[in-house]
């Protein structure tokens, strides 16, 4: 063990050189630890975001493909009509291990029977003021081809509808519709419509199908309120007024449509956005769905948008680790090489008095290790602060860059108009929040990895110059020195 003692003597005597080495090693350690810590934090944030957000896949009609590739009849159907999805086909995908939840949608419209839709009286008054023939327009009816008073949303779970997911709507009384309500004649109505007509939970309302003119009586199971904007068109088309939107089970919507066993859209909530592709592949290979007509649209936009900046930070920190490791090894190697060349004579002396070559290598490695332990200790103290500051600074820069590269402001207006008009419970229109801060902390795994990288750098950068000298015989070394 005498080589360890010699290493200690050498480090303590050569204070200047040891300090230079300490500074270099500390800088390398801090950078490596910072990079590793940011990477870990980014990975953890990514996992958290994934767990929190999930992702969804929508089964819907592939209109674009039908319009472009379909035969004439199919093309016309795709352009002007709804092509329903067989509910059995949609159900065939829910057993996948990747599916965490699902919802089916079947939208239609209906007319009021024994109550007044919001805006019906105003429209009637304005029609009278305009001098139109009262007889040609029934209360609540439109002259533009659509007579619907109510927008009817057939759902399996009402709480997963877009308006509820994005927080524009919330239940204020009663209960949401669930899969247990399948086949039941129940509904969930908006609070303004309920108060206008003096309804409460348990009351019954009657609506009439536009298609079959069949009347259906529905029991009110829930009352919700919405903050959705009332579009200007709602003045003439009552069903476009969000207050006139009612939620019913899929079967009720189908009954009003005069159909059975169909839906317009199915949404599958995937347990991890990373499994979206696997789910789609599985669906394509195992289900009987006609993928010439229908398409599974992946929606991990929210996840991607959230993760974009953080992934860039992670990628950058990865590069930092790689660069610092390579550059650090080179710098360290040069310093060690210079030091060892200066100490060629010492090696010759030690070899001449019988020291083994392996112990000489050991001495140099131990010398650097002594300094490295101090350097790594310093990096542990400072690494957390540096990683936190650098990580969040990088993230901030990425966020700024992302904001700058967003769509032009003028596009926002279009987005605003389109938002809320989508029928399904697609979460794509949800307000997207990017991760603006990551929780950065040095972990044991980071430290172990840093020590591993450090040891590798030290061993490589010591072995190369030492071995080049040790292959000489002591007489040559001493003679050259003389």
């Amino acid at each position, binding site marked *: 063990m005498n080589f360890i003692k010699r290493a200690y003597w*050498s480090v303590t005597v050569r204070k200047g050189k040891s300090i230079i080495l300490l500074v270099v090693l500390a800088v390398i350690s801090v950078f490596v630890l910072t990079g590793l810590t940011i990477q870990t934090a980014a990975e953890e944030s990514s996992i958290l975001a994934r767990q929190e957000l999930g992702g969804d896949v929508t089964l819907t009609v592939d209109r674009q493909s039908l319009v472009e590739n379909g035969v004439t009849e199919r093309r016309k159907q795709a352009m002007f009509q709804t092509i329903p999805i067989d509910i059995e086909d949609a159900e065939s995908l829910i057993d996948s291990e990747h599916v965490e939840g699902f919802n089916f949608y079947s939208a239609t419209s209906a007319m009021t029977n024994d109550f007044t839709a919001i805006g019906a009286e105003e429209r009637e008054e304005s029609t009278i003021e305009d001098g139109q023939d009262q007889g040609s327009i029934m209360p609540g009816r439109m002259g533009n081809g659509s007579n619907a008073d109510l927008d009817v949303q057939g759902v399996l779970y009402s709480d997963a509808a877009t308006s509820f997911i994005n927080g524009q709507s919330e239940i204020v009384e009663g209960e949401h519709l669930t899969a247990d309500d399948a086949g039941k004649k129940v509904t969930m109505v908006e609070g303004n419509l309920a108060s206008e007509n003096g309804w409460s939970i348990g009351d019954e309302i009657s609506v009439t199908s536009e298609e079959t003119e069949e009347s259906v009586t529905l029991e009110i199971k829930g009352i919700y309120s919405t903050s959705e904007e009332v579009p200007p068109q709602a003045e003439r088309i009552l069903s476009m007024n969000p207050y006139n939107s009612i939620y019913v089970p899929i079967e009720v919507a189908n009954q009003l449509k005069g159909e059975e066993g169909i839906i317009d859209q199915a949404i599958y909530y995937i347990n991890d956005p990373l499994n979206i592709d696997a789910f789609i592949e599985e669906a394509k290979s195992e289900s009987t769905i006609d993928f010439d007509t229908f398409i599974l649209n992946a929606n991990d936009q929210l996840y991607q948008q959230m993760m974009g900046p953080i992934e860039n930070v992670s990628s950058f920190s990865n590069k930092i680790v790689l660069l610092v490791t390579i550059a650090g090894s080179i710098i360290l190697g040069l310093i060690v090489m210079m030091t060892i060349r200066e100490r060629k004579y010492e090696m010759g002396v*030690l*070899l001449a*008095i019988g*020291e*083994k070559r392996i112990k000489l290598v050991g001495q140099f490695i131990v010398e650097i290790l002594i300094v490295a332990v101090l350097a790594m200790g310093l990096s542990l103290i400072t690494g957390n602060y540096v990683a936190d500051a650098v990580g969040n600074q990088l993230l901030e820069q990425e966020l700024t860059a992302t904001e700058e590269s967003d769509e032009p402001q003028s596009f926002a207006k279009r987005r605003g108009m389109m938002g809320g008009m989508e029928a399904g419970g697609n979460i794509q229109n949800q307000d997207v929040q990017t991760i603006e801060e990551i929780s950065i902390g040095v972990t044991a795994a980071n430290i172990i990895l840093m020590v591993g990288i450090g040891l590798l750098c030290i061993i490589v950068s010591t072995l190369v110059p030492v071995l080049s000298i040790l292959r000489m015989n*002591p007489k040559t070394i001493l003679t050259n020195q003389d």
Partner: protein
Amino acid sequence: MSELLSLQQVSYWYKQGSKQQFILKNVDITFERSTFYTIVGPSGSGKTTFLALISALDIPGSGKILYEGTDLSKIGLTRFRNQYVSIVFQSYNLLPYMTAIQNVITGMEITGVKHQNKKQYAFDLLKRVGITKEQAHQKVLTLSGGQQQRVSIARAISTPANLIVADEPTGNLDEETAKSIITLLQKLAHEEGKCVIVVTHDQSIASNSDVKITLTKEKMVKERLKEVIVK
């Protein structure tokens, strides 16, 4: 007296273009225990090369060097230097970042000297060569040339090696110290049974040795001056 080291047909040369420039040619010589040898000869006669070969710092171009009948290459050069030979270098070859005592202890540790109190033993050896306790704690570079030479000798005699090889060990010493060092080396030969080989330019030291070897270009003359009485 038993034979310790023998050189058989040992040659050493440098290559100068296609020619071989011989430093030693077909040397046959034997060294015995308990004998104090001196090697003399003009500069360039191959004295230092000869010492390098018998202390396993270099290998011969041809021929064999046997230690107690075993070829050095079989013993292993590093092991031979570690266990069987102690070297006093002309340029001291001390470790500059260490104190005098640390140099001696390092020599002992490398060669695996087992001593209950190594530090005290090292102090005793340094005292024996004329180094005070205060000087023993000084960094070697702060000592004079003569003092460094003495530390180098103390390091060499701290190991149990039977062969001690010294290149001009008194070159930097005053007459009195030189005399005491030579007396010490003679004692190691005669009282502890070691084989001591000293390269010197000093004819008085050579004439006081048991065997004087004169090295001239490609020729070696061995001359027994004294009959060795082992104490």
